[in-house]
Structure formats: C-alpha cells, structure tokens
C-alpha cells in the first residue's frame, strides 16, 4: 500500500519544478569549457559550503549511514568524525589544497602532468574515472530502493523511478555544467537540510534519546558506543576510515572540484573548515534514523537486507505532508550528488583522459564533447546500476571502490606538492599498486572459490595494506630511477 498522498506529491512536484527551472535558466552563462567545468572559478564561501554539503549527501549516503547506525549503533558514526577532523585540519593548514588551487588546474591529474609527465596524467585520469564510476554505479539502485520502500510503491516501479531521476538530473547538468550544479546544489542544500532536521526532530521528540541509547546498549553493549570495544570494528576499522576519509578530503574529485571552482585558495580553505562539522551530521543524522528503526522494528531476520530497515521504518513513522518533505529532501540530496558526480568524472575524462587527442579544439567543440561525455556516463550508470549485485555492506563497497584511486592519488598529490625526489617511476608504481589491490579484493569477493579468503582478509586490512603499499611503491619507484635522468614532463 502506498504511503504517499497527493499533499506529498504536490510538495515533491513543486520542488522538482523549481530545481529544473533554476538549473536550466543559468545555462545561458556557459560559453567556455572553464565555465562548464569550474563555473569560471567564481564560487564564493557560502555557495561552496552549500554545494559541498549537498554533493556529499545523497540517498546512498543516507542509506549506508543509516545501515551503520542500525548495525553498529553510535559507533557507526566514526567515519564521519574521521572525515570532519581530516577536513578541518586540511582547511586550516591548506595541506595540498593550497598548492593545488594556486596552480590553476581544473583537475588533479592536470597537476601531475607538470611534475610527472603526460603518461602519468593519463593513467591517473583513467584510474580516477574507473574508481569513481564503479563507486557511483550503485547510487541509482540504492536511491530507487529508498524511494520505492519509503513511499510504499510497487518494486516494479524502481527502474522507472531510477531512469526518470537520472534523466532529470542529466538535462540540467548537460546544459549548464558546474554553474547549474552549483545553483541547484544551493536550492537542494536548503530543501535537503530542512527535511533532515525536521525528521530528526520528530524522531527525537517521539522516540526519545533515552530509548535510542538503551536500544543500542541492549543490542550491541559497549561496542555500540565505542568502536574499539566492538568486535566487528576495532582499530582496523578506525584506521582504515581515517586513511580513507583523509584521502577523500584530499583527492575525491567531487570534493576537490569545490576547491578548484573557488575564487582563490583562501576561499577553498574556508569552505573546508566551515563544512567540516557537516560530515559528523552526515553520519549521525541518518545513523539516528537507523537506530530508531532498530528500536521500533527490532533486529533484522537472517538473510534480511539491513539497508532497507530505515526506509521501512520511515514509511510507517512519518505523517502525510512530512513524507512529502522527506521525499523532496531525499530527491534534492540525490540529484545534487548525481549531477556533481557525473560532471566530476566527465571533467576528468575530457581534461585528462582525452588530453592527448584534443589539441586545437574550439570552446564550442569542447563544450559539445563535455556534454556528450556526461550523457554517456548517464547511460553507463543506468545499466551498471541495474545489473551489479551488491555483496556485503554498502559503505564497505564504496570504501573499497574509492580506494582504487584514493590511495594512489593521495600519495601522488602529497609527493607532487612536498617531495622533491618524487618522479614518474614512483608515480607509476603507486598507481599500479593502488588500483591492483582493491580490484583483486573485489574479484576475490565475487568468485566463489576465493570468497572465503576475501572474507578472512576483510575490507579493512585490505584497505590499510593498499595505502601502505602505495606509499612504499612511490618511495621505492622514485629511488630506483637514476637521478641524472631528466623527468620528461610535458605540459599540454
């Protein structure tokens, strides 16, 4: 039975109309590739905060953080705290992001070109796109599952909901690029935040803090509050998340795009320091929703998907009207993430992967190619999202696929900015190691013969090993190259 009334439908319709109109209207200001990819570098602090927060909170975020709350209690908020700490210190010190923004590049691999050469730029672009698209591949299905479950629609509408959602986002992203993304992100931030705060306030008022805390205490004991006391988490979980989230703050293209679109490096740093605490909210708010689902629905039955607990809880908990605000908020969250991510990976394909082939292209041709790339990414997402069977929990899948490029790109970026001895041999070794270990882990997880081995190693040890190996590969590779051989760096 549907829990979605005409009042809810009107709220959602109004939101969709406003977003699409705003997104399409600003397209007239896009006349150059620089406008399309980095909004002419005219982004100021508060627009940057809204855009970064909206981009980094999608339905997929809400689902996996709620799953963390449902399965791990308050200890599941640890990744958010790690990210907030990392982002604050990076913003405060300007570590890597200051030299990156000051260099005037549009993507991270473009910076590598100056230090390590065109081949490293190209390889870095390929790895970034591979990791990014695999990571984003599960967004659509997860978003569709949330909407269908929370509204009580028939599951057969999931694919239709996914396709319509993606088509809507693709229209304004293709037309307006980063400019449309920033302006719609702002609107989406306001709608999303209003929905998140309202639903959390309702949960805290009707279920209450004491019941939430006692539920966690009953089901998980001390491990539900302290990750070091939790047998499923412990130091490997905390260390892996600290590495992963620091790497994400430094090189996750969707995050770093806000620094690159900022007016100057100081604006980029301010966006980081002032958005840092949002990453605690990003994990705690849906985490509370997940704990509320545990308190009202109880623990999952064997074989039941814990990802669905939170939307099932909300479908019966929220009154008409508030349901519409929630769905509008979640659509806002998802649309801002999808648009930013499509643009982000598209910008790397155009700027870096196609770098050797696009000499002498006019601005008009550049814009056309960028738009075509985004449309193709949309088509890929639609098909990948439909057939990839997700194994294990969602946050771990995202962490492992993200590590494909986060580990190597972070090491490359740090070395590029601060280590004079770093060279293209070290960079190539780091990229190979960084992509090899997580891809092997993903394959091991899918193949029946190696599934138990993958289970024994676990995602956290495999993730930590990747970062250590990549660091070692950069150092060893750089020292192996004879010092007198000049670096054949070539700027396009």
């Amino acid at each position, binding site marked *: 039975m549907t829990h979605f009334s005409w009042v809810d439908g009107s709220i959602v319709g109004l939101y969709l109309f406003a977003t699409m109109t705003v997104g399409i209207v600003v397209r007239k200001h896009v*006349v150059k590739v620089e406008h399309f990819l980095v909004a002419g570098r*005219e982004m100021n602090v508060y627009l940057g905060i*809204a855009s970064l927060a909206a981009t980094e909170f999608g339905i997929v975020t809400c689902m996996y953080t709620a799953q963390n709350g449902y399965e791990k209690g*308050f200890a599941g908020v640890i990744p958010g705290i790690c990210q907030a700490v990392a982002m604050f210190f990076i913003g405060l010190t300007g570590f890597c992001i200051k030299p990156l923004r000051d260099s005037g590049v549009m993507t991270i691999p473009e910076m590598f070109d100056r230090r390590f050469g065109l081949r490293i730029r190209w390889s870095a672009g390929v790895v970034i796109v591979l990791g990014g698209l695999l990571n984003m591949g599960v967004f659509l299905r997860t978003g569709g599952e949330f909407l269908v479950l929370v509204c009580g629609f028939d599951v057969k509408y999931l694919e239709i909901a996914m396709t319509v959602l993606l088509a809507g986002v693709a229209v304004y992203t293709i037309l307006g690029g980063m400019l449309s993304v920033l*302006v719609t992100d702002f609107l989406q*931030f306001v709608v999303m935040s209003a929905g998140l705060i309202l639903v*959390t*306030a309702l949960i805290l008022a009707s279920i209450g803090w004491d019941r939430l*805390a006692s539920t966690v205490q009953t089901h998980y004991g001390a491990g539900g509050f302290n990750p070091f006391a939790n047998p499923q988490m412990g130091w490997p979980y905390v260390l892996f998340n600290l590495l992963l989230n620091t790497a994400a703050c430094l090189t996750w293209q969707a995050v770093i795009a806000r620094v690159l679109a900022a007016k100057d490096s100081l604006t980029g740093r301010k966006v980081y320091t002032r958005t840092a605490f949002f990453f605690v909210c990003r994990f705690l708010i849906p985490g509370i929703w997940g704990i509320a689902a545990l308190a009202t629905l109880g623990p999952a039955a064997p074989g039941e998907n814990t990802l669905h607990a939170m939307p099932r809880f909300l479908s019966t908990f929220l009154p008409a009207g508030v349901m519409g605000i929630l769905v509008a908020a979640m659509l806002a969250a998802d649309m801002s993430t999808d648009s930013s991510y499509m643009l982000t990976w598209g910008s790397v394909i155009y700027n870096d992967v196609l770098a050797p082939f696009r000499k002498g292209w006019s601005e008009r041709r550049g814009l056309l190619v960028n738009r075509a790339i985004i449309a193709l990414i949309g088509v890929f997402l639609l098909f990948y999202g439909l057939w990839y069977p997700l194994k294990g929990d969602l946050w771990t899948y995202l962490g492992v696929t993200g590590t494909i490029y986060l580990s190597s790109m972070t090491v490359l970026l740090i070395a590029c900015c601060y280590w004079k001895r770093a060279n293209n041999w070290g960079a190539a070794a780091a990229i190979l190691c960084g992509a090899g270990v997580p891809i092997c882990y993903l394959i091991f997880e899918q193949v029946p013969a190696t599934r138990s081995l993958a289970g024994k190693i676990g995602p956290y040890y495999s993730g930590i090993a990747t970062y250590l190996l990549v660091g070692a590969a950069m150092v060893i590779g750089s020292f192996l190259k004879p010092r007198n051989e000049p670096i054949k760096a070539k700027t396009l």
Partner: protein
Amino acid sequence: MIGEHWFWWLVTLAVVVWYSTVTIYVALKGTLDIRQMLRRLKEGEKQRDSRAETSGRITF
C-alpha cells in the same frame, strides 16, 4: 542514559543546533554569493563581447 553516554548526547545536541543554524545562515549568505557569481560572469561576457566588437572593427 544521558550521564552514561554523555559524549554521544553532546554530539547529537551539537549536530541538531549547528545544522539548524548553519542551514539558515548559508541559505541567506548563499543567495548573495549566487547573485555575485552570476553578475561577475555577466560582466565577463559583456567585456568579451565588446573586445570581439573592437577587434571586428579593426579587422574589417
């Protein structure tokens, strides 16, 4: 329960208060940022158009 798990209670309180305040503040200041951004882009377009016009006159 609050006394026993004061850390998470404080984090929850901080999240609700901080997020509510920041949403309102960013909603107001962000509107100004968008206006400024679009105005600067428009000025840039006008400058480009006038440069193109000038160079057109010289050419012809």
